[in-house]
């Protein structure tokens, strides 16, 4: 997939989860990825917020189910800042 946003997301996940071979799909979720637990979830959120210069709400963080939803949330936020 040659989508800049997706490439950035993959880079963040690889860095935080310390896995250079990690690939993400739309439906990839915490249970599919070793090391993606409640702690690294927070680190992922913080890293994504920093990289894309966006802020998520507490409710959004709690509702996220998979990487596809995260990507969609970033796109919405970039299109229309909260």
């Amino acid at each position, binding site marked *: 997939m040659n989508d800049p946003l997706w490439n950035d997301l993959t880079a963040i996940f690889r860095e935080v989860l*310390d896995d250079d071979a990690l690939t993400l799909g739309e439906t990839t979720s915490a249970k599919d990825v070793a090391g993606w637990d409640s702690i690294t979830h*927070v680190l992922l959120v913080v890293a994504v917020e920093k990289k894309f210069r966006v802020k998520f709400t507490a409710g959004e963080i709690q509702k996220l189910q998979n990487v596809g939803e995260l990507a969609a949330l970033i796109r919405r936020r970039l299109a229309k800042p909260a």
Partner: protein
Amino acid sequence: MTNLPDITRLLRLARNGRKDAAIVMRSALLADTSSQLLAGALRGYAAHLGMALELFEAEFDQIESQVFDPASDLHGFGPDTVIIYLAGEKIRDGFGKLPVAERGAFASRFGTRVQALHQALASRGYRTIFFNLADPGDAVFGNYAVKVAWSLQNQIRQCNAELTRLAGAADDFLVYDLAAFQAELGRAGMFDPKLYYTSKFALTPAVIPQVARGVVRLLAARQGSFLKCVILDLDNTLWGGVVGDDGLDRIQIGDLGLGPAFTAFQSWLKQLRDRGIVLAVCSKNDEANAREPFLKHPDMVLRLEDIAVFLANWEDKATNIRRIKSIIDVDYGAMLFLDDNPAERQLVRESFPTMQVPELPEDPAEYLAFMTTLNPFETASYTAQDAQRTNEYQTEARRHQEREKFVDLGDFLKSLAMRASVRGFLPFNIPRVAQLSQRSNQFNLRTVRYTEKQLAELAHSPRHIALAFELKDRFGDNGLISVVILEIQGLVGFVDTWLMSCRVLGRGMEQFVLNTVFEIAAERGLARVVGEYLPTSKNGMVKDHYAKLGFQAEPDQRWTLATAGYVARPVHIAREPAGEPAAFPSPKTN
């Protein structure tokens, strides 16, 4: 300065660990919010410094049950230090649930709680590090809160006052000053409500590395790893301008030009000196010019007597720093170099990679603020003798000059007229013995660290012989400079501890100590003395200690020497009659 890795890198460092670490620390982290990130960062930062931190983490909010239950996992683990972090935000969020009548007593109850925790930990020989409380924000009374005893604002501040009071009363109780960190950083930078309410994180991942750095420095200070000496440039570092060109009355100190900034910087350095950080001057200057402001300028805060070693000449700074080290004799890693000139900093950094060389800001007005943010001077102890250190090194510098007059070492040593005293561990010397035990890295055969409490127990142990040595000479008092602990194992005296301050190397003190040890060993009917060298990254200088003293090698790095037939080694040190032999610890017969 080493750069601070971010949280992701720290966690990676923590996972990889340090198997070769010379310094291993054993701590526990107890918190009432989520502590996993902080725990990982603590381990990671220790690894970043080349140390290993074995860290026990409790499930969150298990503080009392871990501390007070004798069968808890905490006690099974057995840490040296227990770090406790209670979050101010958590206090804030529960404050409204308390009846108003109880709110005014919150801080005093908090103090009681902290005291009970500390006492329980101290009774097991663990040291306590408590985080004080960051201000969580109140906004119930506005500024009027200061006047209302039961406001959250007031109670939080009083909680911190309670922590200050309790820590001030006990050597084994330290405070990590999170409130000061918050003042530096601001609340918004360190607390993210979203992370707190979704995941119970009271610190943002962005600031956790800085907090971890502060806490690990506190832990490491206990292990003897902390700064002891500051090396100072003069022109445009201690004053504005160039004294050799501008002249005494045109340098900026006091009110002239940027003088107030340099005065403030010197005032801070003076406070460091007063607490025992050794100041040395290393300046490319004509010596007379360089000394003149210290002697004659009325606005100088630092005076010549504040400078332990004063080197002003035209040689390169690396050469001069080596000379400073030969007098002050601390690791290069325990030195911090301050110079406004980036080229000098670079040279020093390349010559001494372990030395701390902060990248001072270009604007001298920023020096002090920059250094307070860097906050590099941790320590785990402070004794009155620390403040004497500058005088001791000034005396040492005079000894060095004296040494150069003699061709023969023996003649020089004789001329020193040295007298040493030998005592057991007594209430008055135990703090200094503990400090040496915790700080000595180079001349330290086994690097076993003891707390004051453990030393007090050793002093009365029938199975141990504990000896503390003080040395005087005609230049002055070197103080308590060597410690030996023998453990009696049947007919063998095993040297559990032998350490010495490097300041008195080359004076024959090792031989004097050896003579004393064998005299006492013979009195106690021991057949032999057995020593052991446990290598660390810093104690290579005593690798051949026992061989040099005539011990025979045994397997497992052990060395042995019989008491029968021991011939006292020649020394130029007289035994001080005071305190000997009556002060030798006598064995208990029960």
